[in-house]
């Protein structure tokens, strides 16, 4: 059996490795536009800020593919999958396959506004992006967007000694992951490190003679010589569209719980795929590393006939502002239509909140002490109810069977 894996990111690599582990006789052909062995996009900001050597971004060496029996067809772009004839058509050749796993990932969004691609504007998604940023010598940097990547990019440029302004269109930073109150605390923390934060303004035009010089929002005019777009990632699904593979409402490749697309023998996983949220069941693009890897395992196992269901995507995001960590797990306030109860606490500089909907834990946001976040995350993933936690706290037997749950309940939820 010949299995084509398209993409050499977190998802593609895990898919190939999983197939080889469970079915060593399967032939795995991996296609990738880039020629680098696997590297971690998540560590790009660390390298940008000067905390990490470039060489340490790489998670695999070229030999690792060979020793794992993965055939690499790198430096080629797949232009079409002929799902009827089972052919992968690249810009250079045509290959036959029996099954195909699409792991085409995502691309950074650049809004269609005047000047958006002027010299001096960047995105931070790939190693090539990083290299071109490192070769560029700015003084005043604007980061547009305050999600995980925006926060990290801003911190990295500040660490390198540049003047940094962050612009967020929503009324608070990290709008996808944090509720207003903790987001305001994060904003204060950012500002204390010298980053200027502007919220509620949308970038409308950009101008400059040889490179970006002026950025106009709906309310102000700002000067800069570098601009980083961090307004989100969108699924790379042009290949799917080109090949007649269905794309879902979130613009990711539509898959079932086996990560199979609407075309027979075609699977998708990682940033390019539209999965479902473990808590709400709604379609989501997870766009996270652990989700990409788990989806890749599921796709690979089903692809070789080992039936496995995906559990659903769960948000886990951790970051840091000047050595103070923060984390968001599960869902935030506005994801649910019904009423949400917020249980929150503060201890010195530390802050946490746990969100409860229909008597069940659905999310946690924490700044400072993250020690028991993982345990609460586990409880959220298992849809633990407040009632169950109350019972655990009352019953010495239950305390002993899951002391970690009792520990977290005692810490955060005693009295609720």
């Amino acid at each position: 059996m010949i299995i084509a894996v398209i993409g050499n990111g977190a998802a593609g690599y895990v898919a190939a490795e999983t197939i080889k582990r469970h079915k060593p006789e399967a032939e795995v052909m991996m296609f990738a536009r880039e020629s680098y062995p696997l590297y971690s996009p998540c560590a790009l900001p660390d390298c940008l800020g000067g905390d990490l050597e470039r060489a340490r971004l790489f998670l695999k060496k070229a030999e690792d593919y060979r020793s794992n029996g993965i055939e690499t067809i790198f430096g080629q772009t797949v232009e079409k999958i002929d799902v009827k004839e089972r052919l992968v058509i690249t810009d250079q050749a045509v290959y036959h396959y029996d099954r195909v796993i699409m792991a085409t990932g995502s691309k950074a969004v650049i809004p269609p506004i005047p000047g958006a691609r002027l010299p001096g504007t960047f995105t931070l998604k790939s190693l090539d992006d990083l290299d071109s940023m490192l070769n560029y010598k700015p003084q005043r940097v604007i980061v547009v967007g305050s999600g995980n990547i925006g926060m990290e990019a801003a911190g990295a440029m500040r660490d390198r000694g540049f003047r940094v302004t962050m612009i967020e269109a929503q009324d608070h930073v990290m709008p996808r992951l944090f509720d207003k109150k903790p987001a305001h605390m994060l904003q204060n923390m950012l500002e204390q490190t010298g980053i200027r934060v502007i919220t509620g303004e949308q970038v409308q035009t950009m101008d400059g003679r040889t490179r970006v010089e002026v950025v106009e929002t709906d309310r102000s005019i700002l000067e800069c010589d570098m601009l980083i777009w961090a307004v989100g990632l969108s699924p790379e699904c042009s290949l799917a569209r080109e090949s007649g593979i269905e794309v879902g409402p979130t613009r990711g490749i539509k898959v079932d719980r086996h990560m199979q697309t609407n075309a027979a023998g075609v699977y998708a996983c990682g940033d390019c795929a539209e999965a479902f949220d473990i808590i709400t069941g709604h379609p989501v693009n997870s766009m996270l590393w652990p989700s990409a890897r788990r989806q890749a395992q599921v796709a690979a196992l089903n692809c070789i006939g080992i039936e496995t269901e995906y559990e659903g995507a769960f948000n886990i995001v951790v970051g840091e502002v000047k050595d103070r960590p923060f984390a968001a797990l599960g869902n935030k306030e506005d994801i649910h239509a019904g009423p949400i109860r917020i249980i929150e606490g503060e201890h010195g500089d530390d802050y946490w909140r746990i969100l409860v909907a229909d008597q069940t834990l659905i999310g946690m946001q924490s700044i400072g002490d993250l020690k028991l976040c993982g345990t609460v995350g586990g409880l959220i993933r298992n849809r633990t109810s407040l009632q169950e936690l109350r019972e655990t706290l009352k019953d010495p037997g239950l305390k002993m069977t899951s002391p970690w749950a009792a520990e977290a309940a005692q810490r955060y939820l005693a009295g609720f």
Partner: protein
Amino acid sequence: MEGQVITFNREKCVGCGTCEMICSLVNEGICSTRLSRIRVVRFPREARNAPITCAACENASCLLACVAGALYFDESLGMPRVNSEQCIGCRQCNVSCPFGHMNFHQEKDIAFKCELCDGDPQCAQFCWTGAIEYPEKEQVLLKD
């Protein structure tokens, strides 16, 4: 070490904290619960105590979460380990462990976890009540 597992008999734990002290002493050179890989959750009202360490999960969430290639599964120990050279201190593993086990070393800025003292867990050696043991897997299966 292959074929051995760490077991806890929580009925026998008196919460003395010897395991925490010996763990941090052996692995970090000082006695400190903050740097101990094992931790004892104490419920003083019920006079119950529960040592917690790595559950050696199958398809562990810490492994899936590691963005730096620092966590790997050690087949002979039968549990995930941290390659501290490769760890970038992002804490993704810390907040992914449902047992609150993955620990974070503030000074070194890296994750750390129980690695069974390379196959001779000192917590089991020093536990004087018999609450922590490191028997052969088969023995444990026989008991169940």
